[in-house]
């Protein structure tokens, strides 16, 4: 059974010629089939955790360890992590001019699966998955994320999640900027993947709204660069009623969010 283990993870970022520590000792274990919601105020370091796990070069791991089934994730390049079974659905996916969605999907599926998918079954697979996410088939001929609306970008991320079938999926604020219909469609996509029981899900969100559609097994409150409290789904209800007030008083968190494209 696939397991992602994060131990005492410390991550810093260079900003304005100074090194700033953002993650201050994160411990978390995500097993296949489990869904963990990570909730926290802006600037608490949630996105930094997501991008550090994916290997974004902006973040420096200063100490701690991350393993996937015992393999050292931190030693892997970004593409190796993806091929090992990590997937990050991004909050702000970038435009890739000149690269069509269909070409991109096939290239990444080939890379992740280790061989080119058979054309006929592949076309069918993509078409059906797009259909379930209520994406127009013409979408496949557009350039990756170019001119996509917020909702289209998120559907495209979930389309990749469904096609690439990772062992661990990290969803970074997939719910932000979505209207209720889009949120439902995107959540259903995530749930289809979860129902296979083959993926561990790390759902990063600011709002409890998405948890009405995607039921977490565990809820963790993220504050000031570490997990401040963990519990079951009931912890989300508490946050819904009380907000993050109790967690942010403890330490200075404003400004911990590094800004820029990936924060």
């Amino acid at each position, binding site marked *: 059974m696939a397991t992602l283990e994060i131990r005492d993870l410390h991550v810093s970022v260079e900003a304005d010629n100074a090194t700033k520590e953002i993650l201050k000792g994160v411990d978390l274990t995500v097993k296949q089939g489990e869904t963990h919601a990570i909730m926290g105020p802006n600037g608490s370091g949630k996105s930094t955790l997501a991008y550090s796990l*994916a*290997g*974004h*070069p902006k973040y420096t791991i200063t100490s701690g360890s991350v393993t996937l089934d015992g393999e050292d994730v931190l030693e892997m*390049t*970004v*593409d190796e*992590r*993806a*091929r090992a079974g990590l*997937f*990050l659905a*991004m909050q702000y*996916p*970038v*435009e*890739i*001019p*000149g*690269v*069509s969605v269909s*070409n*991109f999907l096939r*290239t*990444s599926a080939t*890379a*992740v699966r280790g061989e080119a998918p058979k054309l006929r079954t592949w076309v069918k697979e993509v078409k059906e998955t797009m259909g379930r996410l209520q994406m127009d088939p013409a979408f496949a001929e557009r*350039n*990756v994320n170019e001119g996509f609306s917020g909702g289209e970008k998120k559907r495209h991320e979930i389309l*990749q999640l469904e096609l*690439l079938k990772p062992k661990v999926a990290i969803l970074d604020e997939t719910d932000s900027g979505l209207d209720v219909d889009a949120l439902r469609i995107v959540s259903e996509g995530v749930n289809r993947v979860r129902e296979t029981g083959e993926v561990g899900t790390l759902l990063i969100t600011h709002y409890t709204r998405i948890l009405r559609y995607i039921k977490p097994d565990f809820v963790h409150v993220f504050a000031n660069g570490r997990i401040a409290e963990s519990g079951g789904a009931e912890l989300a209800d508490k946050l819904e009623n009380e907000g993050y007030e109790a967690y942010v008083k403890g330490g200075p968190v404003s400004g911990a969010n590094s800004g820029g*494209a*990936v924060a």
Partner: protein
Amino acid sequence: MAEAQNIPAGSTTTGSIAVAAESTVATRMSAPPSFDVADFPVPHGREEEWRFTPLERLRGLHDGTAVATSGAVKVAIEAPEGVTVETVGRDDSRLGKAGTPVDRVAAQAYTSFEQASVVTVAKEAVLTEPIRITVHGEGGVAYGHQVVELGAFAEAVVVIDHTGDAVLAANVDYVLGDGAKLTVVSVQDWDETAVHVGQHNALVGRDASFKSIVVTFGGDLVRLHPRVAYAGTGGEAELFGLYFTDKGQHQEHRLLVDHNTPHCKSNAAYKGALQGDGAHAVWIGDVLIQARAEGTDTYEMNRNLVLTDGARVDSVPNLEIETGEIVGAGHASATGRFDDEQLFYLMSRGIEAEEARRLVVRGFFAELVQQIGLPDVEARLLEKIEAELKASV
């Protein structure tokens, strides 16, 4: 020209990429066009038309010190039936009909060549095979002149390949009779030491169509002037270009479409990728719509993709409109970087860095390559782009 309306260039800048200030078509030339090199002062580098070009790398083509050496360039022409190929002297009346040299090096070429080749496609001949012209540099200095003339309603494809090493200044004239259709592919696949400067003049006859595909991969310095003027109404010109500028290379394309005749069309689209320290691409796109050219429809576009730091692009589209009675006129220029975020996104989907870069560049050029309409040329270009990418990583 004083009343000409100058629409400023819509350029974008990113990081270290410089975008030149606009200037009008008229002020770009320090001297009026002439066939005689003596009519042009030796450039010093601050002139509008020379300011992007490293003169010291012209190896004397610009100041009269480059003396032709024998056997520097070998030209071979392979033509199907229905085509006449001649080698003629300087006094042949068919030379220089499509345009007049606009700068000192083009005029030097016209003043210095000893023999020219003239390729003629007879009236109404429709060629099924391309005319292939190979220009191979053997080292040394050469001046040349080439004419391709199509009779009325003739149709032809010409592929000109430049390979090897040379210091070459050579002009090409394309003369299209009424209703003729000419597609020209000029490939600059020089060794990395070569210098190539030339002016390509097309004179498009009534209802004729001219399609030019300029492909520049090689050379230390390549500076070309693809130019179009119309001899009658209803003419169409499509100017496509593709360049891949590597470390230390200077590749400059200076287009001019002179809408001197009513009811003609033009469409220019050039795309370039750059990589490596000191890679420098220059694109000047001048379109002039003269007062009498009512019903003109024109669009020009330049896109650049900067793959690494240290590369520089100067992209200057410029549209001068002297009449409001036109169908359309537009231009666009954009220079973008293949940046770390794009690389991260693709790699986070399991795609290796090298493959990611290839995907982006291939995609960038594919749309343009598909418009060429000659499958074997398209395949060769895509292959060449792959090779350029492999060499870089």
